[in-house]
């Protein structure tokens, strides 16, 4: 039988899982509003009318990185004149300043893979932050960073995670997944965690009771089929562990990266389609995030109609995406996020780093 939006809709309504072929058929359709509406109906069933956001501070400890990934505008060599390393003191004072806002409850810590910092340094940072700010929720370290720690410490994934958890880590972000296909990773990010390693870190974290997010970086050299495979890989992991909290799609931003001259940013049409298809394929993940920093607020708000139920946060201090020349503002006030959510006809829900609702408006 030919796959059409009608057959897909029937499957969705009868609670059947979508196949890889369904995913590809969705991609080849341009009936964007219809795809969006299908995703919206699924969103309603899975996560209701709340839209999550959090008041958070991004801390990027350093941009010095041995990764040299081709899609990255943030990482650099230590000799670069944009290289920086935050001292423990300046990390603490940044947090102290952000914590003057009583709503600020979440830290988001991701960084470059520093060539010289020892593993103990990271443990120490986490402990120090926790000691000084015991009430803040600490989300940090992508699967890629964890693998880096594994290499520099000689310890196992499990030991590294146990130690970080003991030091105060409460959740992990979804970055570094890119496309979980080593033929692509080999070209774009050969120096960092492989697909298997990334999955193993997530699996281990889930087993140890830490929830993580998952992401997809799209719009570079990958095919639509590789995107769908990526989603199916995450769906299979989630079937196994149930530990994935939120899925985030990152449209690749070529500006200031090694791919700048060969690739233009994908269209917003693709962004919303990908958002909707992710919601439809990932039937076992609760949250789909429209990361406004990458999409801009107007598009992130529209994405709430295309399957998303999370708009990320106020992202004070975000550096990584802004290095890639995204045109969105550096940070947004909570009220702007609340307004955008309301205007989309939904209920704003302020949450912690584990997507637990703190309060609704």
């Amino acid at each position: 039988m030919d796959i059409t939006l009608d057959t897909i809709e029937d499957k969705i309504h009868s609670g059947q899982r979508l196949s890889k072929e369904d995913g590809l058929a969705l991609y080849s359709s341009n009936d964007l509003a219809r795809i969006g509406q299908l995703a919206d109906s699924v969103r309603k069933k899975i996560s209701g009318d709340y839209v999550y956001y959090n008041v958070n501070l991004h801390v990027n400890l350093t941009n010095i990185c041995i990764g040299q990934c081709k899609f990255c505008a943030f990482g650099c060599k230590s000799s670069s004149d944009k290289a920086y390393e935050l001292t423990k003191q300046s990390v603490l004072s940044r947090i102290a300043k952000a914590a003057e806002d009583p709503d600020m409850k979440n830290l988001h810590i991701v960084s470059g893979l520093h060539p010289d910092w020892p593993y103990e340094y990271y443990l120490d940072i986490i402990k120090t932050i926790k000691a000084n700010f015991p009430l803040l929720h600490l989300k940090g370290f992508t699967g890629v960073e964890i693998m880096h720690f594994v290499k520099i410490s000689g310890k196992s994934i499990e030991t590294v995670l146990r130690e970080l958890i003991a030091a105060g880590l409460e959740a992990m972000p979804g970055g570094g997944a890119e496309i979980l296909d080593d033929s692509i990773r080999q070209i774009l990010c050969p120096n960092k965690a492989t697909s298997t390693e990334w999955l193993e870190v997530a699996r281990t974290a889930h087993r140890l009771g830490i929830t993580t997010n998952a992401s997809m970086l799209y719009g570079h050299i990958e095919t639509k089929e590789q995107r769908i495979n990526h989603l199916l890989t995450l769906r299979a992991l989630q079937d196994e562990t149930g530990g994935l909290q939120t899925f985030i799609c990152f449209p690749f931003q070529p500006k200031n990266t090694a791919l700048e001259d060969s690739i233009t940013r994908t269209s917003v049409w693709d962004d919303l389609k990908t958002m909707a298809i992710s919601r439809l394929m990932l039937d076992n993940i609760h949250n789909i995030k429209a990361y406004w920093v990458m999409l801009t607020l107007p598009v992130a708000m529209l994405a709430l109609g295309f399957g998303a139920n999370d708009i990320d946060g106020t992202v004070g201090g975000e550096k990584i995406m802004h290095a890639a020349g995204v045109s969105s503002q550096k940070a947004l006030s909570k009220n702007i996020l609340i307004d955008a959510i309301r205007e989309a006809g939904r209920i704003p829900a302020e949450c912690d780093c584990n997507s637990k609702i703190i309060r609704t408006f």
Partner: protein
Amino acid sequence: MDELTRARQKACAGSRLSFDEALLLYRKASLLELGQWARAAKERHSGKNVYYNINRHINLSNTCTALCPLCAFSAKQGDTRGYILSPEKVAEMISRAMQETPGLTEIHIVSSLCPDTNFSYYTDILHTVRKLLPHVHIQAFTPAEIIYFTKISGLSIKEVLQHLKDAGLSSLPGGGAEILDDSVRQIICPDKASSAEWIETMKTAHSMGIPTNSSILYGHIETTEQRLAHLFKLRAIQDETGGFGAFVSFPFYPQNTKLAELYTIKPLTAWENLKFIALSRLVLDNIDHIKAFWIMLSEEIAQLSLAFGADDLDGTVGEEKIIHAAGAKSGSIMTRKKLNDMIVQAGYIPAERDSLYNIIKQAVPS
């Protein structure tokens, strides 16, 4: 069957909507439902084509007798920002445009109601442009300007239009309509053409074989009912004359306007803009084309509007001062390639058109 179900069915089937039905859909239907119906309506009107036009905008002056509170472009007489282009200057700009823009098919001229001109200045300008570009379409002067010309010349609407036509005018743009409700105009633009005058000008132009566009400026102080009633007024004119080629909605940008100082105006969101594009596609069943003006909406939202019933991205525009004065953030130059890409990515066929929607160049669907 309840009214909402009935309205939904009519929108889906493409039947003519009543005002009450449109209002109900505006309030109750979801954005994506409206989008799907509007896209189907678009395909009934223009199939898989999405149009654009290679044009050049010229704003002759900005000093204005009307000083509408809605306007961020105009300047008071004597203001240092004030300017008026001489026919020589316009000739220079046109020559430059001819070099810079191969395939230029339209010159688009809209300006303030300038206190320092007489009517012959405008016919001179048209002669100048016509001489340099004998075959280009000249779309110029909104009804607000036409009414102003009747005042400074003592001529009737028909006489003014005839003089302009003789001097080379091809069509009128759709601007100056704002909201065709005098209680609203009293606040947002008290000193320019009234609703009746705007309508009279359009009907006269249509009766003389001068095609025009139509528009709305929304998202300021008007109510939802007034916004929708405006669409129904345009639909009624179109039933009578058939002279509107396209409809374009201008979202109001409060920045730098007097109106925003006097009233608290909540800026429109992309959500609202797409919803309104969809709704206008559904209500204006007798107007063939719905423009999503990328300069106003941003390139991103203009592309998305193709899923919500728009079938025209307007043009590659040089030197559009009016909109940027009000703080629209889009860049002011667009390329053919970019427009083609935007359209192809949305699964449609790019169709470069002239001002009357004749196709000049069309990509072959792959």
